[in-house]
């Protein structure tokens, strides 16, 4: 059919041999060709820059690979056993758990609270939404700078210590001591400030999808305030909540920027408070360039995060069925 159209438009041409050629080109092969014209560049890039490195890394994880990416000394599962035995690696996993215990619930509650407040507001709604969302424009480096050098600088002119001073409380060395671990407060609040707006937007989108008739029905039944939230808003946000929780966990697992920028001073990172990626960074790319152990660590972390994602999906879905 397309060839008929073409010959209508170009009456001067002899159309006898052309349609058959055109039809042949527009056959199945044509579809195959066009598919790869569209999808090919992406697939090639994905293979070269994602699949090849992953396979190569799994290969490296079975070798002794200091400073080399073409190792010869096969060590079997040795690197994996070393990593699992390494107290520094295990403590990095504990650091992640401690961090997640702080950051996941607080971000969840505060961003949901902000979304609920903003959603009910008529006057200046977009202003408040913008204010909470604005920190998303900030990088972790900039936030780390503000937190480290201004709010939580150990001296009196830092905001936190200035506020304490108004109440006659002594200055706190927020970052220079390992015990008590005040640095957790610095790290958690920085990430909270950066992330709350992002998740608030997700909750707001979820809230706007809830049908108004549900609220009308609740109002007729005399429900209001907390009851409406408990029986309508929160259950209706189940899909959003599940997605937010998973994102929060995965992001906490990948925390690197704020730890690196807030805690390392004069180019050295303290031996404590190293989450998995910081540990991996110093193992694989530090002075040792230990790609074997670094790759084994990356594989272990990938497996952990996959298991966490699957388990979390199961648990939340089971809860769904129970209701």
């Amino acid at each position, binding site marked *: 059919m397309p060839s008929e159209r073409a010959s209508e438009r170009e009456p001067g041409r002899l159309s006898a041999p052309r349609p058959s050629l055109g039809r042949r080109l527009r056959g199945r092969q044509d579809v195959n060709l066009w598919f790869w014209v569209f999808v090919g560049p992406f697939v090639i890039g994905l293979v070269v820059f*994602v699949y090849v490195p992953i396979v190569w890394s799994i290969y490296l994880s079975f070798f002794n690979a200091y400073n080399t990416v073409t190792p010869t000394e096969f060590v079997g599962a040795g690197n994996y056993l070393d990593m699992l035995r390494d107290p520094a690696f295990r403590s990095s996993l504990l650091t992640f758990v401690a961090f997640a215990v702080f950051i996941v619930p607080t971000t969840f509650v505060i961003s949901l609270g902000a979304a609920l*407040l903003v959603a009910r507001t008529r006057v200046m709604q977009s202003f408040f939404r913008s204010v909470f*969302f604005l920190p*998303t424009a*900030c990088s972790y480096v900039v936030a780390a700078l503000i937190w480290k*050098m201004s709010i939580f600088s150990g001296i009196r002119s830092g*905001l936190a210590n200035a506020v304490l001073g108004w109440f006659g409380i002594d200055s706190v060395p927020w970052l220079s001591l390992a015990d008590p671990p005040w640095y957790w407060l610095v790290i958690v609040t920085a990430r909270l400030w950066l992330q709350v707006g992002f998740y608030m937007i*997700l909750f707001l989108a979820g809230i706007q999808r809830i049908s108004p008739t549900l609220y009308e029905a609740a109002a007729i039944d005399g429900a209001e305030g907390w009851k409406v939230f408990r029986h309508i808003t929160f259950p209706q946000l189940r899909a959003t909540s599940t997605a937010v929780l998973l994102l929060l966990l995965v992001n906490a697992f990948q925390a690197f920027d704020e730890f690196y*920028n807030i805690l390392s001073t004069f180019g050295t990172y303290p031996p404590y408070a190293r989450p998995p990626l910081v540990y991996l960074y110093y193992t694989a790319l530090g002075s040792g360039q230990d790609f074997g152990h670094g790759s084994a660590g990356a594989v272990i972390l990938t497996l952990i995060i996959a298991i966490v994602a699957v388990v979390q999906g199961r648990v939340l879905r089971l809860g769904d069925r129970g209701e």
Partner: protein
Amino acid sequence: MAIVRSRKQSRVVGWARYSALVVAALLFLVPFYLLVRSAFMREQDLGSPDFHWLPPVWETSNLTGLFDNPAIPMARSLLNSGLIAVTQTVGVLVISGLAGYGLARIPYRWSNTVFYSIVATLLIPAAVTFVPSFVLVSTLGWISTLRGLIIPGLFQALATFLFRQFFLGFPKEIEEAAFIDGLGYWGTFWRIVVPNSLGFVAAIGTITFIGTWNAFLWPLVIGRDQESWTVQIALSTFLTAQSVQVSQLFMAALVAIFPLLLMFLFLQRWIVEGVERTGIAGD
């Protein structure tokens, strides 16, 4: 909302809600205020034991000094960040847009297999692959080059996934009309589909730009030489080494977030849509 309440009670609730919002909003603005204040303070005022609400003297020479200071490659790192963010955004939009359309619309026999092998990579957290990716890029000899900073980031499975989902919902009748008119897949995509999808393209584009401009781990791993630093790496280097004036450091940070603040002022609608699209893809 049609919730019936006594007038007095609803007024109390309304006031409580507004007070909470105002307090929270002020708290969220404090870091920005401190950034701007400190950027215009003199070094001796920043180091003094007293907290200053406003700079005792507004020091604008921090800005000029920043670009004159030979120790800080500010102009170069801003240029690098701009180049990387623009090329990566355009590249991701073209590469993932094409791939998403092909996956959504071209009836190739193995289309689903290709799609699932793309989605599978979404399960692997990107940050964990920095060790293998570094190994590959160093083998290619791309350490400390713009190539090494840009090219590996051009192939975003999430963007391709989102484009495919979006194009699946594109009204098919319009495309069929174009196709019958002899435009073919290529012409239909560029002349009909893209011009009618600019909102979605803007959403993915802004979110990609912000992510690239603010990226840290990959530029840290690849940008070893000073000439290849992005602005984030320059800031981080001086922050962790504490080797420059603090007031100049704050000015540098203010300069570094300025382009994104402008984006938030003018393109917030698309950024919000981009957040909604990318965030909800998690489930």
